[in-house]
């Protein structure tokens, strides 16, 4: 179990590439998917030596632009906090990935590498606590900007995020009660195997209501459409109105990294994480009795691929929701959070508890 700092660094690099790569890809997916849904062509101009690759170079062009654009601080702003706030924002968005398991175990000579940066036994609690810190980047940035619209957007965002934080906490209890653990790797392990010999034992089949609530709350927590009243670009623009260059880039990145995060947690809690149906540690065991034996490396690759594909599916789903629904009004957002989702998820806890008690 002893892992050198080199291996931790490799895993850190992998998860960073995973989050940032998907985040970058998302900027492209967002444009391209909206284009398809609205019968347009979408971003396709960025090219390298005339090679356009259906606009896939746009994230790269964005990154170059973020790095090179002038990032200025308004004269009336609080200089220090104005610079610090976007960095805090993106930092708190990234550190959650430390506990997301993206595979089981990789045997590497003598060492067994756990495919999770920090196998924390309070992983889910850690995620929940870190999600609550996201509010600081927004509030401090808004306040430091000293702009009327930034303050408006910041206060809206803060009230929305803390409201949905409560709902987020309550929606995940169904899963914790079923698996009796807050260790994410263990939760994924418990989703291995099958019901009745063929249906993968994923969390969604035990917590269908929990899943729908969680996804809704997750989208609200990341302030994406239809919950984007704090940053409605056609009205108040939001807490990052004064930011330019890298400062804006970091808020932008925070948004997309949080979207990836929500997908990753959804997959981990409700869709078996890295589990592939019928794939055990030594290979595929199909319900009709066929067995394909695979070595450890192949299995690990399958698991990582499975996790990534599932995450991508939920990214696609979030984008589809984003381009389908219109923006909610602010009072509707808060009403939904406090008066519908919170009571329903409390009810979900009671129901889950009763079912578990009866089955026992």
């Amino acid at each position, binding site marked *: 179990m002893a892992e050198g700092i080199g291996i931790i660094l490799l895993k850190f690099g992998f998860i960073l590439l995973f989050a940032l790569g998907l985040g970058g890809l998302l900027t492209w997916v967002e444009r391209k998917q909206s284009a398809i849904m609205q019968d347009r062509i979408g971003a396709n101009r960025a090219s390298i030596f005339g090679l356009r690759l259906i606009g896939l170079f746009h994230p790269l062009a964005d990154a170059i632009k973020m790095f090179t654009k002038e990032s200025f601080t308004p004269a009336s702003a*609080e200089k*220090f*906090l104005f610079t*610090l706030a976007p960095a805090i924002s993106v930092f708190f968005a990234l550190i959650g990935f430390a506990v997301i398991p993206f595979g089981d175990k990789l045997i590497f000579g003598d060492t067994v590498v756990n495919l999770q940066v920090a196998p*924390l*036994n*309070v992983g889910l*609690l*850690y995620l*929940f*606590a*870190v999600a*609550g*810190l996201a*509010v*600081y980047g927004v*509030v*401090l940035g808004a*306040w430091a900007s000293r702009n009327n619209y930034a303050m408006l957007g910041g*206060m809206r965002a*803060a009230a929305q995020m*803390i409201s949905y*934080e409560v709902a987020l906490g309550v929606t995940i209890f169904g899963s914790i009660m079923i698996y009796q653990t*807050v260790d994410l790797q263990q939760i994924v392990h418990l989703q291995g195997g099958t019901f009745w010999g063929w249906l993968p034992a994923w969390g969604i089949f035990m917590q269908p209501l929990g899943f729908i609530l969680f996804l809704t709350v997750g989208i609200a927590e990341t302030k994406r459409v239809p919950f984007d009243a704090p940053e409605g670009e056609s009205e108040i623009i939001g807490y990052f109105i004064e930011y330019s260059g890298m400062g804006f880039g970091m808020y932008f990145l925070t948004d997309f990294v949080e979207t990836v995060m929500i997908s990753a947690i959804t997959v981990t809690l409700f869709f078996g994480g890295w589990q592939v149906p019928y794939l055990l540690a030594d290979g595929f065991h199909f319900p009709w009795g066929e067995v394909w034996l695979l070595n450890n490396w192949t299995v690990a690759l399958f698991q990582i691929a499975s996790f990534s594909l599932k995450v991508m599916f939920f990214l696609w789903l979030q984008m589809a929701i984003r381009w389908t629904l219109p923006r909610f009004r602010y009072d509707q957002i808060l009403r939904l959070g406090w008066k519908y989702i919170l009571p329903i998820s409390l009810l979900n806890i009671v129901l889950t508890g009763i079912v578990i008690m009866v089955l026992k």
Partner: protein
Amino acid sequence: MNFYDIVFYLFAALTIASAGVLVFSRNVVYSAVGLLFALSGVAGLYVLLAADFVAIVQILIYVGGILVLLLFGVMLSQKGMRVDIGTGAKQLGPAMIVVAGVLVVLFRMIMKTPWALQSVSEFEPTTNKIGVLMMTDYLIPFEIASVLLLGALVGAAFIARKD
């Protein structure tokens, strides 16, 4: 001095330095940012004491909850930003005597107490144990806590509404 000690002193230094920012800053929002790091440092110290659940709850409640409330309070007050919170009454002499007295008492307590030392290898997850104890030995305090929370909620909402 091993790795454990180094990390301990790092967190202790972070906590004290941020607490210094909190106390000496002229701007209340900067004080709140100082408190953010001070409370996070305390969470790190809890981890080093093998209290994993308490450490996470520290982040959840103090860093992610109470501090948000504080920030809201600061931002909702019209002149909260550059208000001078000094009252003019310095009373340096008596303050020095009281502080020195407290320091002596604390120091003696630290020195005299027979601390129960635990070896690093005994650290283990605590969430389940806390759950079991809460449901058995500490049931009454646990249920009273819910009444206390209810009282706090009703009272706070009542006071805030009167504005």
